[in-house]
């Protein structure tokens, strides 16, 4: 593999998506930065909304409230031309350990997943592991059936925005 140039890590750090068991979805990725920076991008709502939302699919984030501490709540509201009304995702942070781990519930449905993201720093790089555990296989299948439809292949708008900022 050719040596990565600085700033081109997106091309070489692969995102791996696995269905670990009938109930679990796991996504992993290496980031070329210390854990405190990746954690900041994940836990600061102003930064989080710059990368989480698939803007090129026509979705927009109407509001983004995140009280990222153990016991704190979050509420994300999305709108899309195809939705009759905005769609809300909400829940509670079960565990927040700065720069290491965030776990939250997904309470918008009865069979919502419990999501955990961990940040493991090694030699200035950070491995991010996103882990969703559904209570039943059917709940995972249902989430799978709907969630990924029509999502964008790239975040063109976000790329532009970030290019302007840097």
């Amino acid at each position: 593999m050719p040596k990565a140039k600085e700033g081109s890590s997106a091309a070489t750090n692969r995102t791996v998506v696995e269905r670990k068991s009938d109930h679990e979805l796991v996504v992993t990725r290496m980031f070329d930065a210390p854990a405190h920076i990746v954690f900041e991008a994940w836990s600061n709502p102003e930064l989080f909304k710059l990368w989480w939302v698939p803007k090129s699919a026509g979705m927009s984030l109407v509001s983004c409230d995140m009280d990222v501490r153990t016991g704190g709540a979050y509420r994300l509201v999305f709108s899309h031309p195809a939705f009759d009304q905005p769609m809300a995702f909400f829940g509670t942070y079960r565990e927040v350990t700065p720069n290491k781990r965030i776990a939250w519930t997904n309470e918008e449905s009865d069979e919502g997943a419990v999501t955990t993201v961990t940040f493991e720093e090694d030699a200035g790089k950070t491995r991010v592991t996103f882990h969703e555990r559904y209570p039943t296989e059917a709940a995972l299948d249902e989430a799978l059936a709907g969630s990924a439809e029509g999502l964008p292949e790239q975040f063109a708008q976000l790329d532009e925005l970030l290019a302007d900022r840097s």
Partner: protein
Amino acid sequence: MVHYQARLDATFAALSDVTRRGVLEQLGDSDASITDLAQRFRMTLTGMKKHVSILEQAGLVTTEKVGRVRTCTLGRRRLEEEAAWIERHRELWSARFDALDKLVDHLKRKEKADAQSKRR
């Protein structure tokens, strides 16, 4: 590809048993309930449930319960669906994490620049 390795292991383990291979052959002809299969292979319901559950875990069979009857279907389609699903999710998460990667890179440079300007 640990996932596929594990899936293959499960598939081979499932196929290592003569009854389970017979069940797959049977389901290749038509769907059947667990009760049907138990009778056909002269087994207890509990024994057949175990075999079906192993086939199900390997993704070779899917089952659906309607009322009191659990019907078994050959699960090849499901494996294809799963591959398609994984691919869609990979696209979403790649896009999302590529964007995060760019943001993180920007924040890292900013932190470095801030530290340097403080030093001056």
